[in-house]
């Protein structure tokens, strides 16, 4: 048949356990690296960078940073006028960083530190008449932002300020013929955006609108012989896509449709045994983003030494429980 499958080959001497102490080192040092190119690049997405590092550390039961400093930093990133939160000082507010900030504050039980009315006002202001959400005042539309909006509002218990029916209608209009979802109506299905849409529906309790088995089949077709999952047909496997696919399958009640052991082996192989951290693929440079999603995926796969993670919020389940938030999970 001569099919050329895009995949990677796992070598013999790959790590087969989680090297916790190395990851703690990696995540703790990351923000302090000097003259590292990656560090320079994280300025514009610092709030998300902090969310990745701090959540990953929480999942392995560590929190080495003084909470007060972090909370103060977040406070300083809130725009008093719009109420939105920016990636860093001197940046403009954006829905992506507003969610990251709220997630970090939930981890630290410090939601009261910011102006929650402002956050509510900001998120509500970004909803369009068709139900979609813009990421910021410049109006970029994407189902990612629908997710960010309901995740943020759900965490601060203000979901009722937006038009949920319209928001659901828009997400539904992004459902494709293959059961998947894209960024906008009829945009190509993409695992990252499927996660956003499935998590959106899980948070709003509207998961019944999906084509459960069709979508779950598309998702489990993402698993490649290496065990890793890709984000679209004919793409290489990647740890972050592994999380997005896996968490979506978990919410759809179909996690068992993939080969768990094969995926576990792949994710473990993406650890950097020298520096700590996870990369997208074995042998690549590790970063906090793939480290969080690697650990979170291992948690969903049932690794007991990692804290239980919530599939929709990508936060420790204990934090979500404490907030008494319930998400819909299909059977």
């Amino acid at each position, binding site marked *: 048949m001569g099919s050329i499958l895009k995949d990677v080959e796992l070598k013999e001497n790959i790590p087969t356990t989680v090297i916790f102490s190395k990851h703690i080192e990696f995540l703790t040092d990351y923000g302090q690296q000097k003259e590292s190119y990656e560090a320079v690049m994280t300025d514009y997405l610092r709030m998300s960078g902090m969310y990745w590092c701090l959540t990953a550390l929480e999942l392995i039961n560590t929190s080495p940073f003084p909470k007060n400093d972090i909370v103060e930093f977040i406070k300083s990133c809130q725009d008093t006028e719009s109420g939105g939160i920016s990636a860093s000082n001197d*940046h403009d507010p954006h829905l992506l960083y507003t969610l990251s900030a709220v997630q970090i504050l939930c981890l630290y039980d410090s939601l009261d530190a910011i102006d929650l009315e402002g956050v509510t006002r900001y998120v509500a202001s970004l909803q369009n008449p068709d139900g979609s959400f813009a990421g910021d005042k410049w109006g970029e539309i994407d189902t990612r932002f629908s997710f960010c909006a309901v995740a943020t509002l759900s965490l601060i218990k203000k979901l009722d300020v937006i038009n949920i029916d319209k928001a659901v209608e828009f997400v539904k209009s992004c459902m494709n013929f293959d059961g998947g979802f894209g960024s906008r109506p*009829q945009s190509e299905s993409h695992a990252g955006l499927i996660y956003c849409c499935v998590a959106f529906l899980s948070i709003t309790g509207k998961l019944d609108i999906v084509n459960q088995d069709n979508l779950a089949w598309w998702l489990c077709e993402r698993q490649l012989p290496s065990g890793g999952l890709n984000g679209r047909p004919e*793409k290489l496997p990647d740890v972050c896509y592994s999380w997005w696919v896996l968490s979506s399958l978990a919410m759809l009640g179909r996690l068992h449709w993939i080969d768990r052991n094969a995926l576990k082996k792949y994710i473990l192989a993406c650890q950097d045994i020298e520096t700590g951290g996870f990369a997208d693929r074995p042998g690549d440079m590790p970063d906090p983003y793939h480290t969080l999603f690697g650990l979170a995926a291992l948690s969903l796969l049932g690794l007991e030494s990692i804290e239980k993670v919530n599939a929709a919020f990508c936060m420790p389940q204990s934090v979500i429980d404490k907030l008494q938030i319930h998400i819909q999970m299909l059977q």
Partner: protein
Amino acid sequence: MSSASSDEELGTEYTFYRDKPDWKDIEPLSQDEDDPVVAIDYSPEFTDVFNYFRAIVSKGEKSERALILTKDAVKLNPANYTVWQYRREVLKELNKDLYEELCFIEAIIFKQPKNYQVWQHRRILVEWVNDPKYEKNVTKIAIEKDAKNYHAWQHRQWVIKRFNLYEDELNFVEKLIELDVRNNSAWNHRYFIINNSTGFTEDILRKEIDFTLENIRKATENESSWNYLRGLVLHNNQGLSGNKTITEFCESLYSSGNKSSFLLSLIVDICGEQASKGVVDADVKIERGRALCEELATKIDPIRKNYWRYIAENLENGIKTSGDSSKVL
């Protein structure tokens, strides 16, 4: 983070803003860092440019020199959304020639084709000039470089929908599919074009089914073309099992010894559909479907064995796992 630039230099003869006479009146604003989680060291050029950028923003200065400064800043970090926003404000304020800006952003896009901000900037400019004439070409080049670039496809679809540019799109897609039949983005675009222009009329549906089957034959393991076929069937009220072209194609491919999991899966669904329609030999259909599922689970596609076993179990209940059009359409 994969979009990090490797092309950050501003040229060899970079003059620091702090040494430029025409910037003497500006007091640079440095960033105070005392938090261990967020402390970062920048290159001298980076620090220089961004200290002056912060100063300009805090003054609200929208001038020619501010425009040049933002150009340096986006070159250092094209993902910095704040710089792009400020640049747009300056462009508006100075009433600049936006076609010049379209050229500038085009160059940046080709260096940073996977960056959200550059495409967003372009979209806003196209809205402002209300002229889409360059967009098909720009996205074509980006797609030629990376056939699955989500941003490029998204931009192209936006511009097509916004300015009603469906004409000739099918030819564009056809060439891409010819080049790489596994290009899922191209198949998706094909659906997008037809769905939003002519719609799937009976005539078009027939042509599309022929086109797809022909392409399936070229690469029978290609998920994209099989998915597209399933998408087409959603528009066909005879369902899967009622379409002779498809059922005969599948049977003939199967009897040639082909064991593509997508082929077998479609035959399973055909069996299930026939059984649920109450044909006389429903038991035989179900038995066949189950046997195929078992072969998939044990031999052909064991990584998804739980999926195939689930399908087998549900065959009898008449649960259709595909072709359920009620939710998508």
